[in-house]
């Protein structure tokens, strides 16, 4: 196996770096790391359900974290379950509720076509156990049509899972309306929302929305990796999907990751301090990046909606005639860190199911690049990115045979 360290030497460390790949992995700001530090070895390093001082200190972290998150979501009598990731929370929501199902006549699970794989794949697994997965298509900006949802739900429907904000194209669903449609039709249908990309970016009021279950992931809001949450309303029954020694969590066995929770707590606190101001600033940077790209680079398609219906942190464009992975590498050598919607599989490039779902062609999907603005970005960061993107795309287009005149046949 080739060592990545050699490759990194060839790559070099760019003199200026702007990280815009918060979709895939958030970095953790120093003030959040500082909050974690004492919990590794100064206090709260114990087990939160053991009766010794470091254990009680650990429990204090759980207690205060869940209380804080509960307040930001207006959660009153539901439960916030601690897992290790958004992926785990989504699995627990979907499979855990399915395992606890009592009414076998309900077997339909409805999800939008642009859900994260950690929602779609668990639902697909349930199909092996007698459930039926129904996917609602979205329009060309990623919105679920409320009337179509209304038409799809029936007395067989067990659960609906529609994310609050799409992770790739930033579409903010009208969750309140969608929940209302489902609940007015049938109170018993469980409504789950994956809010991994919505939490701390748009206001979320669990009580007002009438949501039954909600997924949150720490590293998506500048918290450390290792924490996911699942909110479960009091009236919803779920079962464990993992077995072991229970600590304080009824539905996720094993010791809680207390330092990570302390960091997450700080990340939440920071995100909700001057929430509106932060979000407004992000929107300005977002629009500057979108406008700058469209202005400076020809043959670009914006993926997802514009304006208030787009998440404040999301920018996603397709650069035509060039391929995503080479764009990410080209930009990486220039210190601009982004990701592409397409993933390389053994034979072909697998295009993003989200980009396809909004009606893009394969080759449009292959050139899609995702940027996520964070509250730590400066105007200078965005301008730097905008100074690098046009020449990067330009260079790759020089290499690419696409988008030019028809191939001239030439034979001597």
């Amino acid at each position: 196996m080739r060592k990545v360290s050699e490759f990194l030497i060839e790559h070099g460390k760019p003199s200026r770096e702007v990280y815009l790949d918060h979709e895939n992995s958030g970095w953790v700001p120093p003030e959040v790391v500082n909050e974690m530090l004492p919990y590794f070895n100064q206090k709260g390093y114990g087990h939160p359900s053991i009766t010794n001082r470091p254990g009680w200190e650990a429990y204090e972290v759980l207690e205060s974290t869940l209380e804080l998150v509960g307040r930001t979501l207006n959660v009153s009598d539901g439960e916030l379950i601690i897992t290790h990731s958004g992926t785990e929370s989504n699995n627990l929501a979907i499979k855990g509720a399915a395992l606890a199902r009592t009414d076998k006549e309900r077997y339909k699970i409805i999800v939008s076509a642009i859900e994260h794989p950690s929602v779609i794949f668990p639902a697909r697994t349930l199909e092996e156990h007698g459930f039926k997965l129904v996917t609602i298509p979205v329009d060309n900006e990623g919105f679920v049509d409320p009337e179509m949802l209304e038409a799809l739900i029936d007395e067989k429907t067990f659960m609906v899972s529609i994310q609050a904000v799409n992770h790739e194209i930033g579409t903010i669903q009208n969750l309140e309306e969608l929940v209302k449609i489902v609940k007015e039709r049938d109170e018993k249908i469980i409504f789950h929302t994956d809010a991994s990309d919505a939490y701390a970016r748009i206001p979320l009021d669990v009580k007002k929305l009438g949501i039954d279950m909600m997924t949150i992931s720490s590293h998506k809001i500048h918290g450390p990796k290792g924490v996911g949450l699942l909110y479960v309303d009091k009236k919803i029954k779920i079962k464990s999907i993992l077995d072991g020694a229970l600590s304080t969590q009824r539905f996720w066995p094993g010791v809680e990751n207390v330092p990570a929770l302390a960091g997450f707590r700080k990340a939440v606190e920071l995100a909700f301090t001057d929430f509106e101001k932060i979000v407004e600033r992000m929107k300005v940077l977002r629009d500057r990046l979108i406008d700058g790209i469209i202005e400076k680079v020809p043959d670009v398609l914006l993926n997802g909606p514009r304006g208030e219906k787009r998440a404040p942190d999301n920018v996603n464009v397709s650069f035509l005639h060039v391929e995503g992975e080479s764009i990410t590498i080209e930009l990486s050598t220039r210190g601009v860190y982004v990701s592409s919607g397409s993933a390389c599989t053994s034979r072909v490039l697998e295009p993003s199911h989200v980009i396809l779902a909004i009606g893009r062609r394969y080759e449009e999907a292959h050139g899609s690049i995702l940027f996520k603005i964070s509250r730590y970005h400066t105007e200078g960061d965005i301008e730097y990115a905008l100074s690098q993107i046009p020449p990067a795309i330009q260079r790759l287009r020089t290499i690419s045979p696409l988008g030019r005149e028809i191939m001239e046949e030439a034979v001597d």
Partner: protein
Amino acid sequence: MSTRTPLIYSPKVLEIFRNPKNLGAMQDASVVSQAGSPACGDVIRIYLKIEDGKILDASFESYGCAANIAAASILTEMVKGKTLKEAWMISWEEVAEELGGLPAIKYHCSILAVGGLKRAIRKYIDETRRERPDWLPVDLSKEERQALEEEELIEKMYKKHGRAP
């Protein structure tokens, strides 16, 4: 679904990706061929200038990942000065090796480049109505076959996703 891989390229792939050789369309090419498809996410176009059965010059264009670009570039380096027969004998493994190795998930880039080259050679012989040399098999070579398969694969995928390419 397979795992995404981190694509640990050799330093050489990155170096060639940054400074590709023999880039661009060749105005006076003897033959041009293409392999791959935009929908698949990689296309390699190869231009050869041939005289007296020898490749005098070669260039490429590439739509695809870094490995794709590097494989096409290095292949054009490798064939320059070679006879058509010598060029035909180049295997995708040699190209991968010349690149300092490729991650397994990127072997197809090397295959596509060699497939494109072989197509060019076959086409040149066809189009110039030369007699088929004995080193040139009637049946498609492994690399030409795999390029074709990849091009066809995308139609199956489109069918699966219910849309025309």
